[in-house]
């Protein structure tokens, strides 16, 4: 992160020809690594665009002779209801857990009460547990209240188990807003909600962007809850894709087209809002 030109030139002067001579090795290695990451993408796209009959193992890497967009149409027809389920699930669970997390983060960073140092780690532990350890009671609970197999049941699960990470990110985010700003508002007579709506909330737009991206991606991609708690009609896209691709006599063009459909929403978010995506990713490691 050398922003000053001074140290930049210094760096060049101390390492003259040597740096230049080896520079192509750096680019070669980076290009090879990029190939490793992009090869699967190439394979997915060409396979999805081939006629089913033209997909043979030996010609895997060949470009399609005729470009066939039909697989996307078929995959879309099969997956549209599942994509809709995933969208409803991810949007509603993200909004609910983000709003609750924002409130929790506000309380935990600005209204520290006795015992908060014990409560907070206990809350955080919830985001690391293997969900297998709560899966059987969760399944029983949702069945008892009549939400098993219903999309709403899955939404409830994602909201609750999303609370630790959203609380963590907002707590770290609000901790950086100086208390003196709050004190000024308090003198003006603002109470608990006044401070939140007038000061914290307007300042938390980028915090919300980080949390929303993180939660949306996690929930869209999640599989364990999805496969355990849903029925055919409430399946999200991950379960439908796993079912389609898991069948034995399968034409590979469909799973590949389906993979692209399933990946697009999170990929678009990543490419457009990558900066915030990385921030959420770094926030996931507690210290923030």
């Amino acid at each position, binding site marked *: 992160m*050398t922003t000053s030109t001074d140290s930049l030139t*210094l*760096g060049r002067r101390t390492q003259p020809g040597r740096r230049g001579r080896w520079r192509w090795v750096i*680019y070669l*290695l*980076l290009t090879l*690594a990029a190939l490793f*990451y992009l*090869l*699967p993408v190439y*394979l*997915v796209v060409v396979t999805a665009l081939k006629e089913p009959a033209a997909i043979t*193992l030996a010609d*895997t*890497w060949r470009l399609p002779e005729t470009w066939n967009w039909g697989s996307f149409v078929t995959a879309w027809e099969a997956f549209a209801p599942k994509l809709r389920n995933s969208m409803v699930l991810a949007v509603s669970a993200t909004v609910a857990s983000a709003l609750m997390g924002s*409130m*929790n983060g*506000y*309380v935990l960073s600005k*209204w520290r*009460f006795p015992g908060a140092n014990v409560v907070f*780690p*206990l809350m*955080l*532990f*919830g985001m*690391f*547990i*293997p969900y*297998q*350890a*709560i*899966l*059987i*009671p969760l399944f029983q*609970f949702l069945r008892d209240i009549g939400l098993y197999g219903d999309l709403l049941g899955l939404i409830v699960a994602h909201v*609750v*188990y999303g*609370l630790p990470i959203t609380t963590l990110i907002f707590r770290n985010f609000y901790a950086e807003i100086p208390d003196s700003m709050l004190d000024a508002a308090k003198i003006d007579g603002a*109470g608990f909600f006044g401070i939140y709506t007038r000061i914290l909330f307007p300042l938390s737009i980028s915090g919300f962007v980080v949390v929303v991206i993180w939660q949306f991606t996690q929930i869209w*991609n999640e*599989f364990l809850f999805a496969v*355990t708690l849903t029925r055919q009609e409430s399946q999200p896209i*991950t379960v439908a*894709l*796993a079912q389609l691709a898991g069948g034995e006599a399968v034409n*590979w063009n469909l799973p*590949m087209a*389906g*993979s692209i459909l399933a*990946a697009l929403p*999170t990929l678009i978010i*990543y490419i457009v809002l*990558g900066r915030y*995506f990385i921030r959420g*990713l*770094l926030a*996931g490691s*507690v*210290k923030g």
Partner: protein
Amino acid sequence: MRSNDRLVAFLMLLPSLVLLAIFVYGFIGRTAWVSLSNWGSDPTQALALDPQIAFAGLANYRKLFTGIIDVRFRQDLVNTFFFTLFFLVGTLGLGLGLAILLDQKVRMEGLFRTIFLFPFALAFIVTGTVWRWMLQPQGGVNVLPELVGLPPLEFRWLTTRQQIWQFDWNSVPAFLAGAAAVTFAFMAWRAWRRGAHVRAGVQAVLAVGLGGWAVTGTPGVTLLPYPEMHGFNMAFIGIVIAAVWQMSGYTMALYLAGLRGVPEELREAARVDGASEFGVYRHVVLPLLGPITLSAMIILGHISLKIFDLIWAMAGSDNATTDVPALLMYLRSFRANAFAEGAAIAMVLLIMVATVIVPYLRSSLRGEVRR
């Protein structure tokens, strides 16, 4: 007025506290109870809305670790061990390498970063589906060498039953005791150097005791009356590659953030002292990345212990050679309705994750309070 606000603040937090208390701790307690019961052994009660279940003590755990039928669970633990090991080595090594390359003030750094990190945005199910196609026996990766005129590879990535590095399950207590002995010996040595002689003595005694117990063949503990061989299933190699493909961008981002945090003055000072560019990394930069490596190991390690969807998508949900406890728990509970056994597997998984996560949470939050 102010104390009133405090009450409001607590009341706003309360719903989340109650929800997490029930859904995390209440449910874990319930799973623990189920794991100590006989739920599922009577098929008529298995799916009853209010099943009649009875306390069964540690029977389910005993079956998992020493029962004849549950050999699959023990191989699953071995699978998880090797998967975690290679997954960590792969993601940390590749991530660090890429971060160092990107730190050389390269052109198009943003483009490279985007390429290395994009798989992290994908679902494990998508990655698994894609890599399953990449690793077909007569296609994908195996025919890549043909593009440059070489003979194709023959390796059956996901279906091979080849197993290497075999060992007897009965020697696991000896391995564990040996590892504990080495750890205690190391801690004793450190305590001795710091002058804590009493603590060093206690730890040395523990080390010698455990070491002796391990070397003499762990007398007093017999898991199985016969040898039972386990080892590294080579079908996991492809799964590790796919997992590293997906997650190495994450370590790259962590390390790059860490490298950017190393002040340029520090590197400059080392260069002035005559250090080569390699020496600057070796002696100045890398030692500063220790804490990042530790937290990356913990985050990735707990993901690896829980790995579930990637294997489901790559090798199928019911493939014994590529099974892991997280998958077996699902199969036992929701396919076979053997809920008590599923709960016992879940508790083993929870204990493994907790041993990694609890110290991490404690140390990182304690540091925060001090700051």
